[in-house]
């Protein structure tokens, strides 16, 4: 079995460190890749999606919304427009509770929307639960599925 990956798109180094800490302590069977802005995330994803055969796509993308260069919603849109990634699981993890963000994310077919809690315990719990769900319980779509 090849190592499965999770892509964390997060520009805030503190949030990145806290998320990695939360995931590390859970002993997950996956490695975490980190992209620090939207452009980097898309570059990384596109390289994997276009390579055949090549390293597989991540199990889930944890996507922040407020990102430098290319914003989270634009990243989500680009992912959905790519034929190989139309069904790639993307969970938006953000500090924003604005209803327009919520609407925009679901309009771009996000698989989930999580508000980052301020308290660390709650934050860790949220990250761990989301990742565990996609890693352990969710059955991914068949490879042939794609627009």
């Amino acid at each position, binding site marked *: 079995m090849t190592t499965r990956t999770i892509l964390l798109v997060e520009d*805030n180094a503190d949030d990145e460190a806290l998320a990695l800490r939360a995931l590390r302590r859970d002993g997950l069977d996956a490695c975490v890749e980190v992209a620090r802005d939207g452009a980097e995330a898309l570059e990384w994803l596109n390289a994997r999606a276009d390579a055949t055969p090549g390293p597989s796509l991540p199990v889930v993308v944890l996507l922040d919304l407020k990102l430098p260069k290319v914003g989270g919603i634009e990243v989500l849109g680009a992912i959905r427009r790519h034929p190989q990634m139309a069904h790639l699981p993307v969970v938006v993890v*953000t*500090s924003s509770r*604005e209803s327009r963000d919520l609407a925009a994310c679901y309009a771009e077919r996000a698989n989930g929307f999580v508000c980052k809690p301020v*308290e*660390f315990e709650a934050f860790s719990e949220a990250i761990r639960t989301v990742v565990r769900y996609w890693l352990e319980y969710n059955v991914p779509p068949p490879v042939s599925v794609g627009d």
Partner: protein
Amino acid sequence: MAFYSVNGTKRNDRLTAGWLAFGYLAVACVWILMSDRLVAMVARDADVQLALQHVKGVGFVVVTAVFLYVLVLRELRARSAGESASRMLATVLRNSSDAISVLDLGGRIVAWNHGAERMYGWTEKEAEELEVRRLLPEEGQSEIEELLARIRGGEALVTYPTRRRTRDGRLVDVWLTATRVSDETGQLTGVALTEHDVTAELAASREVVRLNAELEERVRLRTRQLETANAELESFSYSVSHDLRAPLRAIDGFSRALLEDCAGQLSSTGQNYLERVTRACGRMGQLIDDLLELSRTTRAPMSVATVDLSRVAEQVASDLRATEPGREVEIRVAKDLSARADPVLLRAVMQNLVGNAWKFTSQKSVAVIEVGMECDQEGQPVYFVRDNGAGFDMQFAGKLFGPFQRLHSESEFPGTGIGLATVARIVGRHGGRVWAEGRPGEGATIRFTLSPEAG
């Protein structure tokens, strides 16, 4: 060159006069022929006949004289009355402030009143020689010909706005009324023009149009400014929601990491400090959430509906019971309370008010919260939430509804001081008002209305 009405005899009058004269001729001839025979039949004597002839002749002359007198007198009276009426009319026309003139069918000016003198600058005398084109602006030189054509075509009254040029070259806006002028036989002889100066009215209406446009422009500008301000406020609260939470999470997260990973190297005082740091982070997080909620209640679009307030209050109460199942609180919600309000915002009001009552009764052994409705003098509904909790001093009643205003210490009753400000803002958006009554240690009552008529 004057305004005298022509008292002409019409065709009918001539006919009447003709018939009268003919009748008189007939009666007189018959009388002359018949009366002599009558005299001859009545008297045989020549002297008596002569005397009767004299009486008859004198009587006839007297009767004719009386008729003549009556007729001439009537005619003279009628003429003098007509003349004085004509003079009166002429005076009115001559002195009218409107410019009144009469043109003959060739377009020559044949009458010119004082109003025309004042408006256009030519005297009555000068107007006799005046070319009518001098009065017309450059762009309307054919106006009078067209007008005469219409009058000749049978139109009795022509009226339209136009312009005139004065002696000194100014242009005057006038409202023109043209009527037919005809002679005693009904033959068209000219056209009477009444020109009313509407320069001032036009200027006023142009001013109204200009002011309206200016007002609309100002409203547009103000709307743009407000939209900009709103957009700024929105991006501000967006930044608050996103950017202020991130550093807080870092402070809280790394404090916890420190507590967990380096507990052995920290003294109990150090650990206590770190716990205080994380507690402060929690409060700050709550403060940000409450502030955002306050800003949302101001910006969110409203849709008013009939809301079952009793049900909303019961739901809020059961939520509160679920958060603290150990507490014994009696919550009395009046039956069938309904309100016209935005359902989401009204729920926020009840969450804050019943939530406050729940919080401030926490130190009472028997806590009672009451939700109900009264009517004010005008019969408008006044809703209230009453508790028997900590209460407050009425001298601070005015401070209750401002953001961050607190009457109790954080250790006594936790809170951010934004809840009642949110309530006040929501009630205000519905056009109602909110006020509070209380006594320290004896509880508080918050009352609110939801429509501008009440309270």
